[in-house]
């Protein structure tokens, strides 16, 4: 995985501030949580936006595939993304 991504800055979704767009590079984790993320459209190369954070900065709301999805920061950490412009 690392080889083709050395040029770009990859972070996980939990580190993206509200209002920024991102492109998904990889979904980590295993089992139910990973399956759920993938089914909800968190798949490679998909572009989304972090919409907002809750009061204690957790959970966060993300716009992906035309839907608003809420996820905990611990779950967002499983998603490697690249920040866009």
């Amino acid at each position, binding site marked *: 995985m690392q080889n083709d991504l050395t040029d770009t800055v990859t972070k996980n979704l939990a580190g993206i501030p509200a209002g920024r767009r991102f492109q998904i590079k990889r979904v980590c984790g295993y089992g139910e949580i990973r399956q*759920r993320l993938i089914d909800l459209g968190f798949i490679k190369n998909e572009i989304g936006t972090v919409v907002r954070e*809750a009061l204690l900065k957790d959970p966060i709301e993300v716009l992906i595939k035309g839907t608003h999805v809420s996820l905990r920061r611990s779950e967002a950490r499983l998603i490697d993304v690249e920040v866009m412009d």
Partner: protein
Amino acid sequence: MNFSPRQQRHRRGHFQSTIRAGGKPIRIALAGNPNSGKTSLFNAITGQHQHIGNYPGVTVEKKYGRLQFKNELIEIIDLPGTYSLTAYSMEEIVARDFVIKEKPDVIIDVLDATNLERHLYLLLQFQELGVPLVGALNMSDECDEKGICIDYEQLSTILGIPLVKTIGTRGSGLSQLLDTAIQVAKGVFKVDQRHLNYGEDVENAHNQIIDLLETDPAFVAKYPDHWLAIKLLENDRDAILKVKSEHAAAAEVLSGSDQIRRKLENHFKDDSVAIIAGQRYAYINGAIRETVKIDRTRPAIDWTERIDRIILNRFLGVPIFLLVMFLIYQAVFGLGNPLAGMISDWFGRLSEIVKGHLPAGQFRDLLTDGLIAGVGGVLVFLPLVVFLMLGLSLLEDTGYMARAAFVMDKFFHLFGLHGRSFIPFMLATGCAVPAIMAARSLANKRDRILTILVTPFMMCGAKTPVIAMLAAAFFPRKAGLVFWGIWFFSWFVALSIALIFRKTFFKGDQSPFVMELPPYRWPSLRSVLIHMWQRSVAYLRKAGTIILAAAVIIWIALNYPKAPTAVQTPVTTQSGSELLLSAPQDALDYSFAGKAGRALEPVLKWAGFDWKLSVSLVAGLAAKEIIISTLGILYGVTEETAEAASKSHMTSVGYQLSRDPSYSPLMAISLMVFVMLYTPCLATLVMVKKELGRLRWALFQAAFTLGIAYLMAVIIFKVGSFLLPLL
């Protein structure tokens, strides 16, 4: 196509005989994502002809309706709303097993036409199951508003699935939808098993697995082989289990498919789940690119985002949430309690009337104090249930419930609970019965169990008078402080126990929180009313009957066996203890409950309770407020004490307790904590059994709460007795 509906109906031959005259119904399963408008479509089709049951073996609710449509008798089964058909959630397993095992004649998959990309994902998975399928492009009116233009004939051709435009909330397009479904069921319209091509590598792997599966023809006849091959590639645990237990050459198939999967994963440098999902979405994107045009010249106002800018605002979110909860609480208890009081009065009067017309005796007592009081005890909760369901369905249907979870999740997650646990917690401060019903909105079973186990610790409407009475009797100057201290203590215990359970019994992977925040929608009055009606009937039928039976048993325990002398002197009482009016104190002492109380005294002595308190606590298992009336009987409240009590602004029972030299303020605290925490009332336990589906959860709840209450009370009493003299 391997599926001819006629054949299938022969396969279900034994089922046919049970159906009343009118013929064999065409069985239509209604599927779809949550928030696809599936429920309003189901309600629009079935109207009043709905029944609720459970899917066998699980607590997932099954709604179905049977009706005459044109010349056909049709049965519509509402499958649980799911995003996918994996083996991770109960809902998904139920939905796919229903399709595989029960073989409905046709499936209608309800799609949100404004968000086809996500909704087609499920449609394709149903198609993979190889079943006759129709897509309902629902909410097509919203499409027009948003300038989304779908060439649905072309989309239908690309997918190989008939599609029909519908508007569930207005009921339009339904007749055409049912016509199409019936024709698909009869084989007039063919549905292609699949058009989706996963690409050469996946297809090859998939074909190799099919070859392996076909070594057992009986197995392949039972399950759709194409679907099973994909599921094995996805390493789906339920598919693996099916092969393991039913395939003749299970070991070869599993090791073979495992090898094929690994090879594929090595090739793509990614895992199979991601590869397959990626291919599905790529195919969907292609289909949408060709058939959906968005009119950019009239961009719709995104009302949901505008509203969320306020409602989910970082700083406004919590106050708004608390305001909404306050309104719900007011609706449930503010409107419900006066009605509950009226119901309770009616039954009181009814029992007076019966008493006036029947000769005194055991039969009359059973009828009035047992049966009538029992029915009243069931109906008293009905207003709460009705208003709760009104509030909850409004929260769900508008889309606010998901926002509430978003706002509160962090706090509750600290204690191992879910954002949605807040609603049961809040309701439990009024009554645990609706609180346990409200835990339904927690989709994950572990979250639901955990929430249900701890919410009855909270102060409820029935515990309030007991705690208030004790606080006033023993701490006349600081009654308010003590009362609120105990109130906060109950929150503390409930949340701590939740955390402890999460770290012990419920250890391991937490359920995912990730969820959709659906667009705000106006709730349909019809859906809300149907929901309210169904829940109320379900409460009366399932919980009501058991609560009634148990109330009668408790009544017998409090009144039998009769004291041998049978001194049935009328007791002049102002304590309002209807239940036990006919039983003077020595009769109670002689009864099963009295004996149980006496027997428990040596144990409860450690917490500082004497036999009178022990008997009252046993009686309180029926309902907490009975603790007061039982003490009233044991102390034989007279007019004298009542007068003295009213002078000191206390209830007569409280007055007598405070005058009893064997009771200390320390014992009072121990007693308050015990009452707060010990075994929930009977109605609550019955609800727990009903909602969690198993008696053992109710029994476990009864036992562990008792244990914790006893432990806390003993610690408070013993440590206090040791420390107080030192101060």
